[in-house]
């Protein structure tokens, strides 16, 4: 008899690569997000699949909307092991784009550590809506709503984003007063 606890110990990994980026004219984030969610739902609590779909939507949309080199490639790797879900994306990005993302993620992490993440989310939503700007909420959302931990680096001309989700903590969240 395989129990839910047994299923939760399953190890898995998936890798996607797409090139050239100029050929991405489909709803790529939706296609990957939905299929990965179904896979994750097969083994782990539903909240994990829901969060992975949001994560993939935000990361892949960000890549597709900020292509630095249309001939280059992007990759997305996902693994679940030892109670941690890890997603890494890579794509060619200019140094200044990386620095912008790095500073943004640093501000989000600082707000999370200071317990002011909800204020940052509220303020950012209001400011961007007022200015009629799109986007700009994805990374905050991943940390505030979905409780991912994020890290960013610039490696050999590529923007590398890592996101981790503590799968062991999901069960404890069921009793959250929200």
């Amino acid at each position, binding site marked *: 008899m395989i129990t839910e606890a047994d299923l939760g110990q399953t190890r898995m990994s998936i890798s996607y690569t797409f090139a050239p980026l100029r050929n991405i004219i489909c709803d790529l984030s939706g296609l990957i997000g939905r299929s990965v969610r179904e896979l994750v739902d097969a083994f782990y609590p539903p*909240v994990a699949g829901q969060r992975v779909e949001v994560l993939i939507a935000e990361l892949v949309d960000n890549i597709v909307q900020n292509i630095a080199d249309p001939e280059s490639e992007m990759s997305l790797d996902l693994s679940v092991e030892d109670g941690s879900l890890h997603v890494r994306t890579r794509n060619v990005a200019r140094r200044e784009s990386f620095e912008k993302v790095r500073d943004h993620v640093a501000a989000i992490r600082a707000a999370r550590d200071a317990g002011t993440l909800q204020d940052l989310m509220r303020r950012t939503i209001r400011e961007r809506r007022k200015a009629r700007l799109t986007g700009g909420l994805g990374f905050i959302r991943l940390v*505030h*709503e979905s409780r991912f931990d994020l890290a960013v680096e610039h490696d050999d001309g590529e923007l590398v984003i890592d996101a981790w989700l503590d799968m062991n903590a999901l069960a404890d969240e069921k009793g959250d007063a929200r």
Partner: protein
Amino acid sequence: MKVLTYGDIMQGGSSVFTATARLEDDWLVVSFSGAIRVDNPHVQLQAFIDAIQLELKDKAVGAVTLEFTDLKFCNSNGFYVIMDVIESVYENSDGPVHVRRLEHDDWQQQTLPILLDLGSEEVRERTSFEDVRNV
């Protein structure tokens, strides 16, 4: 109930998101269903946002229900559409607003209260939540 107006997002020839405003006597129900995944949802939903503002201007709206339980996914650009609709509803009604949302949905639990502007005392006093178990 009388349908006041509705809007949808079409992708690949079929509707993937629908928003509907219905009225029965002075009870307004605004429902959101499907998924918002497109980069700029305002392109397809601005007409709905304008229409709901116009329709509610001369209606006597008492109680309001905002129905989110059929909304399966919302990207962050979709937040601004939701806010535009919500703002119209609060501005053009003065009764209680009952929000039906999914019990286990991160954005509906964590971010929807921000979109509703629960930081405002007036909004907070008018708003109640019903958490519906995910099917």
